[in-house]
């Protein structure tokens, strides 16, 4: 009679062991040579979890040199891949997401009680035992800021050429072209010829693409919100600056088209659940400029209404728009000098900034709020496509 002995599988404790000489291969397969689509369908931020499990094993065996070496190689690997793909939004979003996740893991499993409040008891077993990696967390945080800045730069570079034609020149409201001011000439700083004009849908398509990529990569929702707040600020600044310099777009009809375009962007934010991001607030100067173009500009009461409405525009900007304002036809009068003087008198108490144009390169400081994961390390499966067979589950 045959006796079968069933061997109990050794429990996986959520650690990954490797030989020191395989560190370079680990970084190459998991960081520098990795293409984000390889991991589609797997748990988001898988590289970050794998790296944490390797760090944890090095901590478990109390090998500080191995921890140092792995973290340094990881950081240098991420920097190298970002430098190589410095115009690739997907790659940059992928590494922003993974760097932030690794930073969250270093906090969540640090053993610091402040970061453990949402941990299960199983997760608490996966905390580091020997080393305090606070200083490396700072490096990870600094690296995350660098990656975020690269992501914004790529996104701004894609959107910038579309803004003027989509926001100020394209006419999507039917019948508006018949009420353009006399002498209106279609032009754009971004246009080489007529084929390079964009409509608002182009901006929305581009933002849909950015949004889908960031969600697919598992980027924290708070970071996605900050990305769109920054992009909306740029749309606001570039559009307003052009408005402040171009007589041909300072008209009632552009005001109406602009307000419509902004409402479409607001609608887009609501549809993506991004209306709490602060993005709409960054558009406030542009919203007010659109309203200013549409308000009556004749009586003292009109002046009063303009002053109480345009709180996010400086006196200089209000006066400039009024000076540039172009009547639609012979029945509409130019804004009178007396009206502009009334406005200036009413606003003289304001302590406005002196510069006319907005800084379109201004960046809001980014924050990476702690976002612990409910995922348990020992449930993670490493797909064969990563070619990490040399990692031993411990």
């Amino acid at each position, binding site marked *: 009679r045959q006796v079968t002995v069933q061997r109990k599988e050794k429990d996986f404790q959520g650690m990954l062991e490797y030989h020191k000489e395989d560190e370079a291969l680990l970084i190459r397969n998991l960081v520098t040579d990795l293409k984000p689509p390889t991991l589609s369908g797997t748990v988001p931020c898988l590289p970050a979890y794998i790296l944490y499990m390797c760090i944890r094993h090095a901590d478990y065996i109390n090998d*500080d040199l191995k921890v140092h070496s792995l973290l340094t190689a990881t950081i240098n690997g991420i920097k190298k891949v970002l430098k190589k793909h410095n115009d690739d939004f997907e790659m940059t979003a992928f590494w922003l997401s993974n760097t932030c996740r690794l930073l969250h893991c270093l906090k969540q499993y640090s053993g610091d009680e402040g970061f453990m409040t949402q941990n299960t008891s199983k997760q608490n077993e996966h905390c580091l035992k020997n080393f305090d990696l606070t200083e490396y967390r700072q490096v990870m945080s600094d690296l995350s800021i660098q990656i975020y800045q690269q992501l914004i730069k790529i996104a701004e570079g894609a959107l910038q050429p579309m803004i003027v034609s989509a926001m100020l020149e394209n006419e999507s409201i039917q019948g508006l072209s018949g009420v353009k001011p006399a002498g209106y000439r279609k032009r754009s700083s971004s246009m080489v010829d007529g084929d390079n004009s964009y409509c608002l849908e182009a901006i929305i398509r581009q933002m849909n693409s950015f949004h889908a990529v960031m969600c697919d990569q598992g980027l924290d929702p708070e970071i996605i919100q900050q990305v769109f707040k920054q992009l909306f600020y740029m749309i606001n600044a570039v559009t307003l600056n052009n408005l402040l310099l171009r007589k041909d777009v300072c008209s009632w009809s552009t005001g109406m088209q602009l307000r419509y375009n902004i409402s479409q962007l607001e609608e887009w934010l609501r549809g993506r659940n991004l209306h709490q991001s602060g993005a709409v607030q960054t558009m406030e100067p542009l919203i007010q400029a659109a309203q200013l173009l549409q308000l009556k500009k004749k009586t003292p009461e009109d002046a009063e209404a303009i002053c109480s409405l345009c709180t996010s525009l400086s006196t200089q900007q209000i006066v400039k728009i009024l000076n540039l304002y172009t009547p639609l036809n012979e029945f509409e009068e130019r804004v009178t000098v007396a009206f502009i003087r009334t406005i200036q008198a009413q606003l003289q108490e304001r302590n406005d900034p002196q510069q006319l144009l907005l800084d379109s390169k201004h960046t809001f400081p980014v924050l990476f709020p702690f976002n612990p994961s409910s995922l348990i390390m020992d449930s993670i499966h490493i797909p064969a496509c990563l070619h990490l067979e040399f990692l031993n589950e411990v």
Partner: protein
Amino acid sequence: NSQRPRPRVLLKAPTLAEMEEMTTSEEEESP
């Protein structure tokens, strides 16, 4: 008290800029 975990050892880390300098100088050294 025997249950209390022993304190973890702080691993000193170079800053990101220092890491950059180290990598640059290593690259310069190797042909």
